């Protein structure tokens, strides 16, 4: 409609227009970059680990009885503990392992195929028979561990076999056929160390943050090898992972402690539900998501208030003019449309500038802080959001303008 005169009239109020344009541009730049960070953090938080994190319970027993200095005690207690835990209602599976997920650390080492090939670093853990069922690993090929793979009775010698994640299998055997092949530990300089280990199973996903910068550290976070063994000693104690039926974790915890102390009282039992560990691991990511979300809401709100305030002032400043327009035949709807159109133009100008701002801020953040590239869909979404925001915050003052009576025109100042 009256775009020409509106634009020419805005030219007479350049500062006010510029300020709104600037404010909207900054808001778009900040909002899109915040959403960008939120999306990246949420992706990090929601990255599948390959484990049934929600239902895993981590149990650490710390011995103070000197009997645990004997490896026979360790083995017997490990077997007894697993037997008595497995029969608790609500327990799906249990394993004795040195794998402590979502702590940012663990055990890793260099490996290479026996038939030659590049040395690669991967996380490596020991666990008893039911580790795949306990973690909820999805097997792609081969088998999991069998009873006795980790040694029988007080006999600690395990079989030299391993199940590996698809990432590990692909790293060593890019052409497939990892099952039945042997790998071996390798020193820094590539020398073979220890006995060869035969791959008997390949599972789909492994993700456990590891090392100094746990999300990127030399690609180790998504590689995992499990070998059969009962693990524990006097110093570290015996550790277990228990997979529970949903909703039974609390009741299982109480029963596990009772039965473990019954098996051997010379130790302390500590529990850590994996959901809590995972939440703690991601606490700073969740903080970022929360804060950024809050900032977006506050920012959109403040910008809305700003537009509302400036429009309201411009309405009260132009009361006489509005009355005159009404006297000259403008309907209420005409006045409403006039203000909406005016703000739509300003908002759009701000958004166009904001697109540049959004990319500029992103370039700055990428080069100085994080490495999350801006996506155009976000910018488009941000524009729609701010368009709506601009419209909504213009409506109250525009309605007030529409209600200015035409008789204002004849009133002397």
């Amino acid at each position: 409609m009256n775009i020409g005169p509106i634009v020419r009239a805005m030219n007479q109020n350049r500062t006010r227009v510029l300020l709104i344009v600037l404010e909207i541009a900054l808001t778009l730049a900040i909002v899109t970059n915040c959403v960008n960070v939120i999306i990246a953090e949420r992706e990090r938080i929601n990255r599948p680990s390959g484990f049934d994190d929600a239902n895993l319970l981590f149990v650490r027993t710390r011995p103070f009885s000197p009997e645990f200095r004997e490896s026979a005690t360790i083995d017997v207690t490990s077997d007894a503990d697993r037997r008595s835990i497995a029969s608790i209602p609500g327990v799906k599976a249990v394993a004795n392992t040195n794998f402590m997920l979502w702590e940012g650390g663990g055990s890793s080492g260099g490996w290479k195929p026996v038939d030659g090939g590049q040395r690669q670093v991967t996380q490596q853990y020991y666990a008893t028979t039911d580790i795949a069922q306990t973690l909820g690993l999805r097997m792609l090929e081969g088998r999991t561990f069998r009873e006795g793979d980790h040694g029988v009775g007080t006999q600690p010698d395990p079989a030299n076999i391993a199940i590996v994640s698809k990432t590990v299998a692909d790293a060593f055997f890019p052409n497939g056929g990892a099952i039945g092949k042997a790998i071996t530990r390798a020193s820094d300089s590539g020398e073979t160390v220890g006995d060869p280990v035969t791959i008997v199973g390949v599972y789909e996903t492994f993700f456990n943050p590891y090392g100094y910068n746990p999300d990127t550290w030399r690609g180790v976070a998504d590689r995992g090898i499990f070998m059969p063994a009962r693990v524990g000693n006097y110093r570290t104690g015996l550790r277990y992972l228990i997979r529970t039926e949903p909703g039974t974790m609390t009741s299982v915890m109480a029963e596990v402690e009772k039965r473990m102390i019954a098996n051997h009282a010379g130790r302390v039992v500590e529990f850590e539900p994996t959901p809590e560990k995972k939440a703690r691991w991601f606490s700073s990511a969740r903080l970022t998501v929360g804060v950024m979300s809050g900032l977006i809401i506050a920012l959109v709100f403040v910008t809305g208030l700003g537009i509302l305030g400036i429009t309201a002032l411009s309405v009260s400043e132009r009361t006489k003019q509005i009355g005159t327009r009404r006297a000259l035949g403008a309907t209420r709807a005409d006045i409403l449309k006039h203000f909406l159109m005016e703000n739509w133009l300003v908002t759009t100008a701000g958004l166009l500038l904001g697109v540049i701002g959004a990319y500029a801020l992103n370039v700055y953040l990428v080069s100085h802080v994080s490495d999350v590239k801006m996506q155009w869909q976000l910018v488009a979404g941000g524009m729609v959001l701010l368009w709506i925001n601009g419209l909504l915050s213009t409506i109250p003052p525009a309605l007030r303008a529409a209600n200015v009576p035409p008789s204002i025109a004849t009133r002397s100042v």
Partner: protein
Amino acid sequence: MLTYNLKIALKSLRRNPVLTALLIGAIALGICVSTSFVTLRHLYTQDFLPGKSDEVFYVQLDTWGAERPFNEDRPELLPDLMTYRDARNLMQSKIPVRQSPMYITQYFVHPDPKMARPFQANVRLATSDFFEMFRLPFRYGGPWTKAADAKPEAVAVIDHETNEKVFGGENSVGKTIRLEERYFRVVGVLAPFRPALRVWELNRNPTGPPEPVYIPFNFTQPLEVPLAGNASSWKQETLDTYEQFLNSEMVWLQYWVELPDEASQRAYKEWLDHYARDQKKLGRFPRPVVRTSLSTIPQIIERNKFIPESVTTMSIVSLLFLVVCSVNLIGILLGKFLARVPEVSVRRALGASRAQIFWQHVVECELIGVAGGALGILLSLGLLEVLAKFVHSGEALRLDGEMLLVAGFLSLVAGLVAGVYPAWRVCSVPPAMQLKVQ
């Protein structure tokens, strides 16, 4: 004149309370958010050892293998920890006024069975110099003696919480505490103490709490103290006995020295380089270039990128947020002031100078800035409470004097930035025009 300006400003602000509340609210939000995140960032950038953060140094030696550097991604970095052999040798130097190798073990503490069940605790092994070097505060007693270091004597320093648990909070100096099978005499009890960063432990979980128990470093060998921490090596060595472990190329110790002046710093660095060259002659230190390094705490924080990316991002975004709030303010104030042109023209006609009109309006903006700032600081106390839960920094995340100054400064600047242009506009409209229009 100022009181008159204040009076006019207050009156003007009261005339439109809703608008005034909006303006103050917007500034308060901006100040709250930006202050909180600048404070959060300040956690990591503050001066942890005021007065001597450039006198305490972390010692590193490049003992790594010939094949590849310690960190392939960042070859400029030296091994982050030290071998036991080197630590023992470094202790021979008389140059540092204080020095300590250190590491953590985990021991069971056995309290009187009537008091509590046994519990596992982190125990730091260090020298008596450690406590003064990092200024740990004592409630009772103090560090052990140099003589206790040398022998070593079975003495221990415990923290406030352990003292509560084991001794019910009384002055336990002189009493004994059982760690595993052995009894240690308590010589000092720390005061409650929770720094944002354990600056002496920048390798592993630096934001964790200080250790509950400390015993002399020289117990390492006689007690065969197991390490609770990272040990890594470039070399394949047989490590069946503790003796073999101590003599291996395994790096697992931290080493700190205090060098109070430039002369001693230069002397120590020379001594260190000399030591490294000697070791290379003896067939150790196989890397092509022998390197040693002394780093201050801020240097390590910078190098290890301790400041989480998200904190930096949030600081930037929150400052931009404040800018938006200010721009917002400019717009509204501009409208508000220009609507007042007729009133100003009357004041001008009655003899108010342009400067007086200008200051009158700046005072009004500053009132908004100060009120918004005060409210923002109050709000940020709440936000910091929430943030503290996420960053696990305990009591350390709070507004100190410095941060209050920053907040006050930010709010004054915000008020000024927002106010100067509108005030200038309103005072520079020529009076003639004001009489003519309408």
